[in-house]
């Protein structure tokens, strides 16, 4: 099992050499992408136990920052992505400071994050400078690797594969570190953790920063991949839900939960898209049912179910 990450990475790297289908590559790219942003949510929601219903806030900041810097200042999204991550970390520290200083927990924390994201959505809708309700089209420059634009979608595939591998490796390291243990302690019982020397405020804030930065980079990738972002795609509540869905289904607070959840939902989404092609939203309807079923039958996600059956990972 210890070699599993490298094995997966190798398999992932080989797939485009064997499979030519753009459809397969595109589907896998999105599966990796959702696993990546899910991993971002997982750090705060899964490990530290702070359920955010507004992670679109960070996603949107990432997508808007890299796109705006490119459109307005010609800055390559390779750099813009990190600017977006930095801004998202700042936003995370600010929202986190307010929420945690005032002791918001559980549903109240979920709701305040939703409200922060909504403020950004409404603001983005109303500010013409950032494209208003129409959003931002990233101007296409053909095959321009230096500008994060590619003539072949397989480049995006490899980029998100590497980003995901990095995030998975990082979370694996985090899990067995002091910070990871302290995050788990806060999730399980915050006051007991404080009594054992855990600075809950600082640990939660750190989790928020890591989570925000990762999610924002996912947002930048999305904007480059689709060359487009608008207020609802970026900051909307549906996006917040999409972000948390996969780690929850796969197993929140586990390294492989987001990837597993993303594969399950991704496979399913593609399957149903074939069945009911013309209807938008069908996949979300099914996700709703899956979410309800998971809460009842798999309260710790698929990973929790596997662990109960003795699978370690």
């Amino acid at each position, binding site marked *: 099992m210890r070699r599993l990450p490298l094995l997966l990475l190798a398999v992932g790297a080989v797939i485009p050499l064997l499979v030519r289908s753009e459809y397969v590559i595109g589907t896998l790219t999105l599966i990796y992408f959702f696993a990546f942003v899910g991993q971002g949510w997982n750090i705060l929601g899964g490990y530290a136990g702070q*359920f955010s*219903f507004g992670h679109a806030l960070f996603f949107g900041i990432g997508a808007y920052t890299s796109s705006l810097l490119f459109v307005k200042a010609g800055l390559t999204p390779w750099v813009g992505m990190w600017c977006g991550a930095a801004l998202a970390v700042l936003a995370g520290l600010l929202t986190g400071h*307010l*929420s945690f200083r*005032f002791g*918001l927990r*559980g*549903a*109240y924390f*979920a*709701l*305040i994050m*939703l*409200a*922060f994201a*909504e*403020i950004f959505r*409404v*603001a983005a*809708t*109303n500010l013409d400078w950032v494209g208003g309700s129409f959003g931002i089209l990233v101007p296409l420059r053909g095959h321009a690797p230096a500008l994060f634009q590619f003539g072949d979608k397989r480049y995006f595939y490899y980029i998100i594969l590497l980003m995901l591998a990095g995030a998975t490796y990082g979370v694996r390291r985090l899990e067995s570190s002091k910070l990871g243990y302290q995050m788990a302690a806060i999730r399980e019982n915050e006051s007991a953790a404080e009594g054992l020397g855990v600075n809950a405020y600082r640990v939660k804030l750190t989790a928020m920063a890591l989570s925000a930065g990762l999610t924002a980079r996912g947002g930048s990738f999305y904007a480059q991949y689709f060359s487009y972002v608008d207020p609802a795609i970026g900051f909307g*509540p549906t996006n917040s*839900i999409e972000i948390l869905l996969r780690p*929850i289904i796969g197993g929140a607070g586990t390294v492989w939960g987001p990837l597993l959840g993303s594969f399950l939902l991704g496979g399913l989404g593609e399957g149903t898209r074939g069945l*009911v092609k013309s*209807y*938008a*939203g*069908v996949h*979300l*309807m099914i*996700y*709703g*049912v*899956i*979410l*309800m079923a*998971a*809460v*009842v039958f798999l*309260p710790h996600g698929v990973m929790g179910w596997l662990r109960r059956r003795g699978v370690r990972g």
Partner: protein
Amino acid sequence: MSASVVLSSLANGVMLGGLYALVALGLTLIFGVMKIINFAHGALMMWAMYASFWLAKLGGVDPYLSLAVTLPVGFAAGYAIQRAVITPVLEAPEHNQLLMTLGLALFLENLALLAFKADPRTLLVSYSQASVSLGPILLSLPRLLAFAGALAVTLLLFLFLKFTDLGKALRAAAEERDGAALVGIPVRRVYAVAFGIGTACVTAAGAMAVPFFYVSPEVGNTLVITAFVVVVLGGMGSFAGALAGGLLVGVVESLGGLFVHGSLAQIGIFALFILVLLFKPSGLLGAPSA
């Protein structure tokens, strides 16, 4: 800007606030009794709106009269949802309860999208544009009716909880679940009744909104977020708070619309929401926070 414009806007804000209060009443009732935040509340309202809309459009039934059908159906739906969806997570961690209602909301909303398509629809009834003048103030008739409906429902709920046996059982179950069960109150059935009533409230809100509010699969999404704001402002679980919070939000939105462009007034509401969550999570009218 003349004083009468401001006054009319203020008055219409109060009326709109009545609608918000009605949406929030069901939410706050369910929270007060079960400590569950029902994310599907807006989706249920959206379905109620479609029900009244189609009854009017296809059956020629006036939206207010459609309540005779939709209210019992709404109650039954709420009762069934509680039994089938909420009961299994009553003992689950809070976040799993949230996810459960979130899943339900996703399902209901996208089912509507599948059934009715995304386009917003508006119902034109003879009195959609009717207004009542009160001195210099011009009041929209449907909004006035929604406001009156909100007051009536609040009063009815209050009387129900205070004076009927079922209402008393509900309050007992809200305060002390195990204690209520010990003295023989069928807590699960009482909970289902609470969810049924909460859904009936939002059904009423749906019918009363249809004459002046667009219908779309996403409308519930917008309204439920506003309803969260209202409930938190008024104090989770408080009826009087829901009414006051609804009025406040309605007025802020209506007056804000006069001064700032587009939906920017919503930012003020969300900011207010955040401030209340931070500084007085028990709500503006709630007990002082510890």
